[in-house]
């Protein structure tokens, strides 16, 4: 057994050239085969790739989908984000618990099935949803949950849970998922019909510098959330003094409530791949990487197939488009369940086979990124815009949207509205008009940009969606008039506490403290002073944190205090005049002691 394990782990390492940088591929393969990366496996991997055992443990222990202790052959991961819970995930959780006879974080006594929670899996438009190994199950309710457990107990084959197929490529033989695209509104940039290879051909007819100039003329800004000007980023990378450069696509899509990249990857992968090839030409790179979140593993075989198709079509490969010396190809790097890996430097750490810790900046990725070479990281949607800009011209693109924010934006709309799904709208559209379009006119609050964004109330619904007003990487979570914004903020803090990489003090500790105080307030033990406390704590985390995660994680608290003061007021106790805080009930605390000694404390001699 043990010799078998060592032989086959060594085999896996050899298939990855015993390359330490491919640690993620190695540990994912071991995890898939043995249900864990055991202590013995770690020793074997360390020897094979010439590193230290604790380095392997360091990686394995970082990612939610990897484990050093054995898990069941089938792992059910129920998504517990705010939207899923709004749609009944708690009832589904209860059913799973009852049917399996175990709690979350546990494995059945026969070692067959494990039950876990996982943050947003990119299915908010068809929530509640879960992953059963790699298989996505959507729109769950009690009876489907019961059915899933009974089926799995019978055949242990998650693939057989898919009894209906979704629309479009979800039904492709390499996908076979019950996921639906839910494309509610197609716009001119992403979802309009496209002429395969036309953008790349036009780019190749220009010089790389001219391509970058066009991207700048189109004033394209990143679609992943931060909104950095794409042309400028490319220019930095092109100008860096190094012959090896890299193009990386950020397909981590971890921001809760965001699922538009999932739909692009399913329906428009060739637009993305072409955009990456154009980027490769522009910055002088010959290698590209698509970092695909572990939750989207069900799309992997299909994407590999599409990469092959693009090789056949001459979009990838050697001397592309007859251009001598322009070679470009792409590989897929799988993630393993870590939101922070969407942060571009953490993503590069992960690609290098390390923990998903963000890196110190400077140097920036465009100077020194993947394996210390100049690297551009762009969002899936950004690359698609690039292809379209090359094909239809920078001017046509710049005419769409608003002056500061040209082009269209994909919105992932979920929550309390009639038509959840993906909408391609022009920048500059008012939030109120979006709400009308999606059937969420009576919304009481909208989370714009996911937990790291802002919660806005009806008095801000007339603001436009664009980089300068309501900026968003794409998520719009709609909440009804009765929603409890303080509790929503608490749930978002739960997410950040779990997903903090733990590197820096303010994010690692501060978010725990924010969550603690929100819980106190929600339990009726809040005081007026708590608002100032939360604000000071939130500002500290925002200012002092090392990466974008901590710099935005306090937003749910800060923005709800700002926009919904009445919601907090309603929960706060009037301040006591003696300055004491009722943090615990001394009578209850003494109860146990009283029971032991068999008499009542003199403090309660009433």
């Amino acid at each position: 057994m043990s010799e078998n394990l060592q032989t086959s782990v060594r085999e896996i390492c050899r298939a990855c050239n015993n390359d330490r940088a491919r640690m993620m591929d190695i540990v994912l393969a071991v995890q898939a085969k043995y249900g864990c990366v055991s202590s013995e496996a770690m020793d074997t991997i360390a020897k094979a790739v010439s590193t230290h055992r604790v380095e392997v443990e360091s990686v394995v222990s970082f990612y939610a989908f990897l484990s050093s202790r054995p898990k069941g052959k089938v792992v059910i991961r129920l998504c517990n984000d705010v939207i899923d819970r709004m749609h009944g995930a708690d009832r589904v959780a209860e059913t799973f618990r009852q049917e399996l006879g175990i709690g979350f974080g546990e494995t059945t006594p026969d070692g067959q099935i494990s039950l876990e929670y996982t943050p947003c899996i990119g299915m908010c438009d068809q929530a509640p949803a879960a992953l059963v190994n790699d298989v996505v199950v959507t729109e769950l309710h009690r009876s489907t949950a019961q059915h899933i457990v009974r089926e799995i107990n019978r055949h242990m084959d998650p693939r057989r849970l898919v009894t209906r197929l979704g629309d479009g490529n979800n039904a492709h033989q390499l996908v076979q998922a019950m996921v639906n695209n839910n494309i509610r509104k197609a716009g001119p940039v992403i979802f309009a019909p496209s002429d395969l290879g036309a953008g790349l051909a036009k780019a190749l007819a220009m010089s790389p510098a001219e391509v970058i100039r066009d991207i700048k003329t189109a004033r394209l800004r990143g679609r992943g959330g931060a909104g950095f000007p794409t042309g400028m980023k490319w220019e930095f990378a092109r100008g860096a003094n190094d012959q090896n450069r890299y193009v990386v696509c950020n397909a981590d899509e971890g921001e809760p409530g965001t699922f538009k990249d999932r739909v692009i990857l399913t329906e428009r992968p060739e637009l993305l791949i072409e955009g990456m090839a154009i980027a490769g030409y522009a910055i002088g790179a010959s290698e590209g990487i698509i970092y695909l979140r572990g939750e989207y593993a069900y799309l992997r075989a299909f994407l590999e197939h599409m990469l092959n198709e693009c090789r056949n079509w001459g979009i990838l490969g050697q001397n592309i488009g007859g251009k001598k010396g322009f070679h470009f190809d792409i590989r897929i790097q799988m993630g393993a369940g870590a939101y922070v890996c969407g942060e571009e430097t953490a993503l590069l750490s992960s690609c290098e086979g390390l923990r998903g810790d963000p890196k110190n900046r400077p140097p920036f990725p465009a100077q020194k990124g993947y394996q210390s070479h100049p690297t551009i990281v762009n969002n899936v949607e950004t690359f698609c815009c690039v292809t379209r800009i090359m094909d239809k011209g920078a001017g046509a693109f710049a005419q769409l949207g608003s002056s500061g924010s040209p082009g269209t934006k994909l919105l992932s709309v979920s929550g309390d509205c009639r038509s959840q799904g993906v909408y391609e709208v022009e920048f500059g559209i008012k939030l109120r008009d979006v709400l009308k379009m999606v059937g969420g006119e009576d919304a009481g609050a909208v989370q714009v940009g996911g937990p790291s964004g802002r919660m806005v109330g009806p008095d801000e619904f007339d603001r436009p969606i664009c980089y300068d007003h309501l900026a968003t990487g794409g998520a719009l979570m709609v909440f009804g008039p009765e929603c409890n914004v303080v509790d929503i903020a608490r749930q978002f803090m739960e997410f950040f506490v779990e997903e903090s990489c733990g590197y820096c003090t303010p994010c690692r500790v501060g978010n725990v403290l924010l969550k603690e105080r929100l819980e106190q307030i929600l339990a009726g033990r809040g005081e007026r002073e708590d608002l100032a406390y939360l604000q000071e704590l939130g500002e500290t985390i925002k200012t002092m944190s090392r990466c974008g995660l901590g710099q935005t994680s306090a937003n749910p608290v800060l923005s709800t205090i700002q926009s919904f003061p009445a919601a907090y007021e309603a929960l706060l106790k009037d301040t006591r005049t003696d300055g004491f805080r009722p943090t615990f009930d001394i009578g209850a605390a003494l109860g146990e002691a009283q029971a032991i000694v068999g008499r009542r404390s003199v403090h309660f001699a009433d």
Partner: protein
Amino acid sequence: MSETMTITIDGREIQARPGQTILEAAEAAGVYIPRLCYMKGLTPHGSCRVCTVLVNGRPQSACTQPATPGAVIENDTERLLALRRNIIEMLFVEGNHFCMFCEKSGNCELQALAYRFGIPAPMYPYLWPKREVDASHPDVMVDHNRCILCARCVRASRDLDGKNVFQFVNRNGHKRVAVNAEARLGDTDLKVTDKAVAACPVGALLKKRVGYAVPVGKRLYDHEPIGSDIAAAHKK
């Protein structure tokens, strides 16, 4: 080649060499920027965030940020002092720190920073984590209750001792230092003379049998606040 540049810290112009970080340049000019995970001779880690300054208005960790010509830096401001105090308090409530009977008391950089910042007791609630003590090594012990995750032992073992005895495992608040063995420090090739042991700023990594050797009054930070030596060295 090594032309100097001028940067401004709290209104005072100082000279910096290319390649120097803001923290190093300031130190050379006798300006103390509070720090904790930074240690001379180790690659900067940028994790504690105590050294945060404003560079042209933007918060940056001084230990990782290179000096650039003309940079305007704020260091000793009310606001930054308050923010740093918050960070130091976070470190206290995150672990289990009992200074009154800790062997490192008086020589501990965390405790000394708290004194320098005038923190009598943290305003945050204690988190009381359950953490382990590993006394398996004949000469060295690890008390995770006191670890502040500064990575000084990790870096020192890797870069100075050439050993990789320590590395972080887990993420978020569960992050901790692990050893390069199945579980126990005693099973690693750590020597008591390793630089990694001496690198610990707090009482998490301690030599056995030498606790409380220095009497109160003679300990490192008994008389002057931590950082005083930097200004003093410059005056000489």
